């Protein structure tokens, strides 16, 4: 049962509380998942630490080389940012596909990451962008690659005294693009059945210089599909190649979801979704000239 809800006025105070009683408190920002857990009596801790109002955690900084997004940035703020839409279409689309306007008005990108849901919409594009997380605590700062952040279903590598401060990744340049596709069962308020995000760097039109592929809802947490990346890296893109890789993707899904009732559907549905995402990424890379 919740006995206390603390809303500190400075970030320092937040970090102090985390330092002293980190294991007893839960951070709350948008609360779009946490509040439901509380209502369903699934929430075990006794204290809430409310960071919803911190302006310091709400920012989108796009520089020539690096882009960073504050953990408390709401999805609506990202969706309304024209630069994000122009440069990182896949990330923008993923944020736009979160829930419905009401949820996007409350939910934060940091919460989406730290909640550890396998179906988190914003995580696959951030994985494809090879994002780093900046974790801060009372007297330390730790940078951890997002791909190493997920430990198990609903479990992430956030230490008890840490706060996710920002997400940082390279600003996309010429010949680079990112795409995102999600398979939901309806057009709004849909939890991803499968999602896929692909970053591509092209050279001489159709030669893949670099590629990063990430999927959601195909395992315990969103993850990079490194095996597929190896098959596509330094290759000339072609329909034949995409078909081969998508078949392999189906095979991977089959292995990964063995024994689950959703396996047959996901194995089959991923291939079309993968090809579509790949084509979109190529198009984006060609656009970002």
């Amino acid at each position: 049962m919740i006995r206390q809800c603390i809303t500190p006025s400075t970030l320092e105070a937040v970090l102090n509380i985390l330092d002293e009683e980190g294991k007893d408190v839960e951070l709350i920002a948008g609360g779009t998942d946490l509040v439901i857990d509380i209502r369903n009596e699934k929430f075990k801790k006794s204290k809430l630490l409310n960071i919803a109002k911190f302006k310091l955690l709400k920012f989108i900084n796009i520089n020539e080389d690096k882009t960073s997004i504050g953990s408390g940035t709401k999805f609506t703020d990202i969706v309304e940012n024209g630069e994000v839409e122009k440069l990182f279409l896949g990330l923008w689309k993923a944020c736009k596909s979160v829930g419905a306007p009401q949820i996007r008005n409350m939910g934060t990108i940091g919460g989406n990451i730290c909640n550890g849901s396998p179906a988190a919409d914003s995580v696959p594009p951030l994985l494809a962008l090879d994002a780093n997380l900046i974790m801060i605590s009372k007297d330390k700062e730790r940078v951890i690659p997002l791909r190493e952040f997920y430990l198990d279903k609903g479990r992430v590598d956030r230490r008890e005294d840490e706060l996710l401060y920002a997400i940082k990744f390279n600003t996309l340049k010429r010949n680079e693009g990112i795409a995102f596709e999600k398979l939901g069962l309806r057009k709004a308020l849909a939890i991803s059945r499968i999602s896929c995000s692909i970053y591509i760097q092209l050279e001489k039109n159709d030669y893949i210089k670099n590629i990063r592929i990430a999927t959601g809802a195909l395992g315990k947490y969103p993850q990079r599909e490194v095996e597929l990346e190896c098959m596509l890296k330094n290759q000339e893109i072609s329909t034949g190649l995409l078909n081969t890789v998508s078949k392999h993707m189906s095979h991977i899904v089959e292995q990964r979801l063995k024994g689950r009732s959703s396996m047959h559907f996901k194995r089959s549905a991923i291939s079309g979704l993968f090809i579509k995402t790949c084509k979109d990424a190529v198009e984006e890379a060609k656009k970002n000239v």
Partner: protein
Amino acid sequence: MKKRGKGIGATFYGTGYGNGFPDVSKAVVEIDKDGKVSIYSCATEVGQGAKTIMMQIAGEVLGLGVNDINFISEDTSLTQDSGTAAASRQTYNTGNAIKLAAESMKNKLLNLAKDYLKLNATLGLEMEDHKIYLKMEPEKCVYFNQLVEKENIKVSESFTAQSTQMDEETGQGSPYWPYTFNCYGVEVEVDTETGIVEVIKGVCAQDVGRAINPELVEGQIDGGFAMGLGYAIMEDLNCVNGKIHNNKFSKYLIPTALDMIDLQKIIVEDPESTAPFGAKGIGEPVMTAVTPAILNAVYDAIGVRFYEIPITPDKVLKAINDSLREGE
């Protein structure tokens, strides 16, 4: 690959409880000393617009606008029973009861006006805006409140629908009256790689007898389409061994506004002689034909017949893969 298909679905639907079951609605019309008109009838408003059209029906008879009528409903301490807001029966049944009560009140008022104005007959008397006047001599007029003496004027009427029990042996009888007819046409797009069915276009032709409130009729058609759409492709209880697994709205999916289409509506008016101003109920009929139309369109698109709903993407994908395997 995305494949498109078109399909239609047509149904006819019997209004009311039917099969000889007593289907009764009651209504009371009252006029107080201020000449204010109140109607007491328990036609439950569930979003279908019952309150609005019941006031329209009474208003039409009494020469009043809906804002001039005080409609009291859904309070069993004040109203008599008018049955359930079910079986698409309120417009027809309670609408009839209200029309009867309003007509009976009108007669009563006209007779009172005849005496008040010292006329030979009620012939030629018109009723408008709380006023009764002689059409050929409009200065001969009286207001409702002038006709109410010590006690409020009150009339009560009841309407019972006609239906007979069906013969179980032969299937003969008149289990329902009236019937409502409709037809939906839809166009779908089926993604053969993901199994997602998207309805992209739709049209509905709905027989309503008479549209007392065309805007509400259109609203009901939209609502019925959304329900039929969910019924066909989304709403899945996921019942396994008697246990409902999709027991919350995060799992039991219904269409959102974004899943709806801009449906074309054709209101077919063929007044029903036993209905209030010819109007029939369409609450359920607007839903029934949607699902068959969608399933027919899916068949047209991918050549697979479904005999079970909802056709969620996993079922569609499995059916497509099975049919491909059979083809080989």
